[in-house]
């Protein structure tokens, strides 16, 4: 029981893994709510937190890990939020630093927790590493062994923030390959 009580004390962290979708107007919020609920996402309509200074008076609270899947689904219904962000204090920004490592015949780019490595001569993706969400092994299976210009973009087939981080690394490595 002691442990049980401690767990409930952790409820202060409940907003920790949530994000917020900001829309232009309330009718978009209502449409988005219906679409997301229909597809099984655990979301709710809330008032935007005080640090959000754009959009309408309603917003959608959503599981932040599932950002990519949610944005992709809404896009299919021609609905796009004007912004999305972690719910906690509004100061968090996506990682925007890249780490590039040259292995001679290969080049690796890391964005946040995701790495992609390409054979420079053939432009074949030889490895995808890092990450912890369950689309990472799927993305690796879909990308590894294929030419960087002939694969679906990670954002198209990924669903989570790890998938989004891989998209950033993929964009960067394509840019580097074009330059060389």
């Amino acid at each position: 029981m002691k442990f049980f009580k401690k767990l409930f004390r952790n409820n202060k962290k409940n907003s920790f893994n949530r994000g917020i979708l900001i829309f232009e107007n309330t009718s978009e919020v209502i449409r988005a709510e219906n679409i997301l609920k229909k597809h099984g996402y655990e979301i709710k309509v809330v008032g935007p937190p005080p640090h959000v200074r754009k959009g309408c008076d309603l917003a959608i609270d959503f599981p932040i890990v599932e950002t990519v899947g949610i944005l992709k689904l809404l896009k299919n219904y021609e609905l796009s939020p004007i912004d999305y962000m972690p719910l906690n204090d509004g100061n968090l920004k996506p990682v925007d630093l890249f780490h590039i490592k040259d292995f001679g015949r290969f080049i690796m780019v890391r964005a946040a927790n995701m790495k992609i490595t390409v054979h420079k001569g053939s432009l074949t993706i030889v490895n995808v590493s890092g990450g912890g969400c369950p689309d990472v092994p799927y993305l690796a299976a879909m990308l590894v062994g294929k030419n960087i210009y002939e694969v679906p973009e990670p954002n198209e087939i990924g669903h989570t923030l790890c998938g989004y981080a891989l998209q950033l690394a993929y964009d960067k490595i394509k840019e580097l390959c074009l330059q060389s």
Partner: protein
Amino acid sequence: MLAIIGTVPEEDFPITFGKAKLENDFLFIDSKRVLVQRGTPALVASACKIFEVLKKDYPYVYLAGDIGKGTGSKKLYEYFIKDIRQREFQTLTFHYLMPDADWCNKILLVIEELHKHPFLIADAGFMYAAKMSGNAKYFNLFTPDTGELAFLADEEAPHPFYTRGFLLQDESRVEELIRRAYEYENAPEYLLVKGKTDYIVKKGEVVDMVSEPVIEALEPIGGTGDSITGIVSALIDSGYEIQTACVFASKINRIAGKLANPDPSTQISDIIKLIPKAALNII
């Protein structure tokens, strides 16, 4: 016995559970066949290789198909909390699962009610969930890489993607990040931090480091983190003292990597095959 809970990257792969069997590049669980690639299959296969060396039973495995939509993970969470009540495992390793703080809470509640409390290891998505839900300290071991350590050290970040810039992965600041992860109670009793140097940490103190052999080409190879988590899980479940198991796992993983003579295009299955040879050098 060790139980491993994770996913495979196939949307239609059903909830599958049972004792794993490893044959060449495939795992067999119940009547299902799974190719050993990066992710949970790589972790399971690596654990199997250690159990082979130690002449022990293969691990028990809970798997579901999930390509990132989270539906397979949720079904597996539901199944697991019912099934675990009737089983007795010494060690539980949670791996590639959709990070979900509520499910992490529910699982820990069920585990707390078990007659015998298993040793709890988390890596990948479930480690994210443990941190997100504020439950890191209820686990016994996390196996983050240095980027994930920065995420653990950032008390605000809900996912590594949002780790704040001043904490970003920097091998020279690992000890500072370790201190910070413990300061905010976002780390369990033990950490095995995977990087250029592997750090073994007990209650916030670095108790050992492994940095040899250095194989630069291992960094881009997907699955080298999964293999080390599988190895350490098997060693702990086999009775090795935790610190020793972490040091051995780190060395075995590095030596197996070296034996594979890798370049950045090497695949993890080529390294896993060499785990027994590497283990015999260490154990």
